[in-house]
């Protein structure tokens, strides 16, 4: 347990990175992963679509795992929660992955999360009832890439994402966040069509929902 770092979640990816970079990184190697966590971590890695189990990736790369207390929206800025809550987080992960307002697992492989990891994490927030946090994470992730001129990363993300895996809110947020850069994102038009096709399968779908986002 001593090697696990606990932090409150950061609503801004930028702040998240800054914080990671400003601290001494503890390394969590195979022997440090509490026995009961391995299944939960692997279930999580499977859920977010990583082909290789996270705990194995960490062993291979000698990298780190960070656990954040997702908290409730009203305790977003609560201070460090301590080991007791870490147990809750671990148990939440192992028992069924992120019960509402309890747990989010941030992991880091090769020192950087990929944009799609953030989008998947945003999805986790949203389905667990933290919409504001989830939408902020989508918008921050995309906008930070666009501001940095990293249009290829955004374009690749739009090309790769499977609409069926994401909530309507995530898809609409992706379209909104990329609207201003649509002329330089070659895969966005196709992404819009895929979103439209996916959402139109719902009985409650109205074309007005996507008006102005193409």
């Amino acid at each position, binding site marked *: 347990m001593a090697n696990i770092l606990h932090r409150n979640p950061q609503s801004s990816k930028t702040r998240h990175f800054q914080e990671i970079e400003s601290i001494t990184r503890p390394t969590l190697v195979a022997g440090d992963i509490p026995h009961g966590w391995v299944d939960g971590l692997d279930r999580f890695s499977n859920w977010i679509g990583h082909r290789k189990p996270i705990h194995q990736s960490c062993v291979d790369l000698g990298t780190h795992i960070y656990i954040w207390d997702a908290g409730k929206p009203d305790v977003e800025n609560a201070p460090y929660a301590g080991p007791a809550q870490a147990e809750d987080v671990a148990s939440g992960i192992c028992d069924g992955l992120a019960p509402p307002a309890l747990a989010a697992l941030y992991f880091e492989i090769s020192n950087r999360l990929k944009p799609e990891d953030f989008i998947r994490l945003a999805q986790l927030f949203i389905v667990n009832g933290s919409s*504001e946090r989830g*939408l902020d994470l989508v918008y*921050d992730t995309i*906008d930070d890439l666009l501001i940095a001129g990293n249009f290829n990363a955004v374009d690749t993300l739009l090309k790769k994402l499977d609409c069926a895996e994401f909530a309507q809110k995530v898809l609409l947020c992706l379209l*909104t966040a990329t609207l*201003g*850069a649509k*002329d330089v994102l070659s895969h966005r038009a196709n992404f819009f069509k895929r979103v439209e096709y996916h959402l139109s399968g719902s009985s409650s779908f109205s074309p007005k929902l996507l008006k*102005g986002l193409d």
Partner: protein
Amino acid sequence: MARAAGPLHIVHGLSDLRHAAVFLSGDIEGQMHSGFALDTAAISYLHLMRHLKLSSNVPPDLLLVLDPPFSDERLELVATLCRRINKLNRTDGIPYGFSCPELRFDQSGKLRISTPDSGLTCASFVLAVFDSAGLPLLDYTTWASPASAADQFWQDSIINIFEQSGVDPTHIELLKKEKGVPRFRPDQVAGAAASESAPVEHSRAETLAATLRRHISL
């Protein structure tokens, strides 16, 4: 949640607020002022208070909050955009100016004012946010250009205030170059937010603005 009821779709309380709404307020200098009222944990308001002063404080002399003619789902993203804009611009602010609010996001995705644009007014800031979310509130093409004599008089008064306040002369030069461009008034923007649909044409925005002014004076 259903849109606020009544002919003007006025939001009467937090429980009526569908993520993002448009407020109309009086101003400390006697002018009307507009901005966003938000139902978010992070901020409750966002408005361009004055030159380089983006505020998330309660606006002075709040008069009305109008529920815009857009779906809950899209208004939630307007609120998300407001939080993002607040994060990016709360320190440096947004310059005040007469530029057209259309397409304020450049290719980098950041809300920014680049030369030769001077900046936004409180009202065109609201329009720029809606526009950037793919929800144009006004039909800009129906605004007369050049602006009316009254609106140009107002633009002159802003330039005078800036000159007397020691605002950067380069910025004042940009304002002077833009003098005569269409002006989008706070009551027109609030009126458009009370409309049944958007984008709203100039004549309809004027009618709704007059209705709002009558409502306020009651």
